[in-house]
């Protein structure tokens, strides 16, 4: 037994030595932190796939600064602690000049102090909590909308939706809590009643207690903020309990195609706030780019339902590499300064950073496009009211 272990150990050491990256660095490294395992792994893997397409497209056009782009992808295991570790690993060990990450707001917030400590910028591609750009961390550049911006995007449809009283069911993270606040404010502004706000743990699988409470409240709408896995479970369990509500999911991570597949009839009629529409690529700000991305995604055999997350990876890498190009060198400080000059067309729309947060230590916040779709007869449709506007 002991000999076997020793042999294995030797073998592992040899493999590790062979796999170690060559010290001479030709490629421009871009760090990526995503949840590749754990409770929100589906989303993280889709973002990774999108980031890889972004990398390959850039490399096919000759890379940046005459060098190839290389992605160093770290798994944050859907866990904020791991996100901080991953950021430190990418910065200290791999010496990346820029990072794209870290999906969830709590994971991003946990990684942020490391950015400040070592002085490396991060493109935030998914997180919605408004606090991310309000904390005075000048290394943060967000291309996804904070919940407040999403709520503003929904505001013009409030009359058409006719919400009188809404309840909230959200994941108990910075994202979920932030969304409840932002959409609660929207309701109050629009003169609607705010009912109960229920929370669930990120890994929870049985939400029957929360659903029963929401049902007793008697509202007409339920705002649902969590990962697609939990949305699936909530919709299924809501159907079991005959909860009749207009469901609106927030955060853009609901992947309605996956919901149709996994929740079936329970997904019927639900509304989803999204930032990429793979069903209608021509309706995106850059229709040709969106179409090319959807086709490439299919060509690689990636599941269609991942596209609503996957585009984030592409846009994140695009932004990071554009900043490196503008900086003229792959150094964190120069890339940070160059990020303010970035003006590119992403899959979601134009990416350009504006200052957000306390003066002198502002973070960058882009103004993404926001869309709303509805599941109708087991298909994705643009709601009648959004089509006419």
């Amino acid at each position, binding site marked *: *037994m002991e000999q076997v272990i020793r042999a294995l150990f030797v073998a592992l050491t040899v493999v590790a030595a062979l796999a170690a990256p060559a010290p001479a660095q030709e490629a421009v490294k871009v760090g990526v932190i995503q*949840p*590749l*395992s*754990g*409770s929100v*792994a*589906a989303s*993280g*893997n889709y973002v990774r796939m999108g980031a890889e397409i972004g990398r390959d497209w850039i490399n096919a056009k000759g890379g940046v600064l005459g060098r190839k782009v290389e992605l160093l992808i770290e798994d944050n295991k859907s866990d904020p602690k791991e996100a901080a570790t991953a950021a430190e690993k990418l910065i200290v060990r791999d010496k990346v000049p820029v990072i794209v990450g870290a999906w969830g707001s709590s994971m991003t917030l946990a990684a942020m102090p490391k950015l400040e400590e070592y002085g490396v910028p991060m493109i935030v591609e998914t997180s919605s909590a408004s606090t991310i750009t309000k904390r005075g961390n000048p290394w943060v550049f967000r291309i996804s909308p904070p919940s407040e911006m999403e709520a503003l995007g929904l505001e013009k449809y409030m009359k058409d939706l006719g919400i009188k009283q809404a309840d909230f069911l959200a994941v108990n993270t910075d994202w979920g809590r932030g969304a409840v606040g932002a959409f609660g404010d929207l309701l109050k502004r629009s003169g609607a009643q705010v009912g109960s706000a229920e929370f669930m743990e990120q*890994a*929870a*699988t*049985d939400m*029957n*207690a929360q659903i*029963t*409470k929401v*049902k*007793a409240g008697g509202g007409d709408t339920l705002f649902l903020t969590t990962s*697609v*896995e939990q949305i*699936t*479970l909530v919709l*299924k369990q809501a*159907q*079991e*309990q*005959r909860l009749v509500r207009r469901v609106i999911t927030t955060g853009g991570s609901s992947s309605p195609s996956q919901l149709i*597949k*996994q929740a*079936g*009839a*329970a997904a019927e009629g639900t509304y989803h706030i999204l930032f990429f529409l793979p069903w209608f690529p021509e309706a995106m700000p850059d229709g040709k780019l969106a179409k090319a991305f959807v086709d490439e995604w299919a060509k690689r055999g990636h*599941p269609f339902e*991942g596209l609503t997350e996957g585009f984030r990876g592409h846009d994140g890498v695009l932004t990071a590499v554009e900043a490196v190009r503008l900086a003229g060198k792959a150094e964190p400080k120069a890339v940070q300064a160059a990020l303010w000059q970035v003006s590119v067309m992403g899959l979601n729309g134009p990416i350009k950073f504006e200052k957000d947060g306390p003066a002198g230590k502002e973070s960058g916040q882009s103004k993404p496009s926001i869309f709303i779709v509805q599941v109708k007869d087991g298909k994705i449709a643009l709601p009648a009211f959004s089509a006419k506007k």
Partner: protein
Amino acid sequence: MDQLLQHLLNGLLLGATYSLLGIGLTLVFGLMNVVNFAHGEFYTLGAYAAFAALLLTPVHFFLAIPLAIAAGALAGALCERVLLRPLRGQSIDTVMLVMIGLWIAMQNAELLGWGGVAKSVPTPFPTHPVVLGAVSVAPLRIFVFAVSGLLILGAHLLLSRTKLGRAMRATFQDRETAALMGVSIERIHTVTFAFGAGLAAAAGALLGPVFLLYPSMGDLASLKAFSVVVV
């Protein structure tokens, strides 16, 4: 009042699933004195085995469950032969560490094999709930509740009424005496662990369709199972 009834029903159904999780763990701990940290992984294994059976072969949902239980029991037997048998007589801490190692290895193997994206198991049950007055419940949950009850009853009867059950209890009470009475000690160890793993796999195959399948699903299951056993 309606809310109270629905909460009670939810609690009852959830409790039944937790007890199904706990029973396999109790058995292995109570009889073998092995703290099985990999319990949740046998649960995951059962869920994925049922999923694989449905995906790769034309078997019916009801047949996929016994197949998953068989897969879990087989993996349990293998684990006992390869890992636990050489450690017989070692301290409980040593065994615990090995089981933690097995947990990590199995979870990462699942991640490697199935990927991180959650899977949904199709069932023949209608998604529309059964309505009983003010409360409602999904048919699948009733099925899970019933099968859990049967499995718990079956395990109890096996331990208390059969020769094998008596041999199991005798072995773990007094090894030497049991051996002198003609009980095959080695075989009992293997069977007991396989039995515990099979029950975990049963829980996975039953609860997988209720929830979703992903490689770390066993962590939550383990947590609940340990709470059940300790409380």
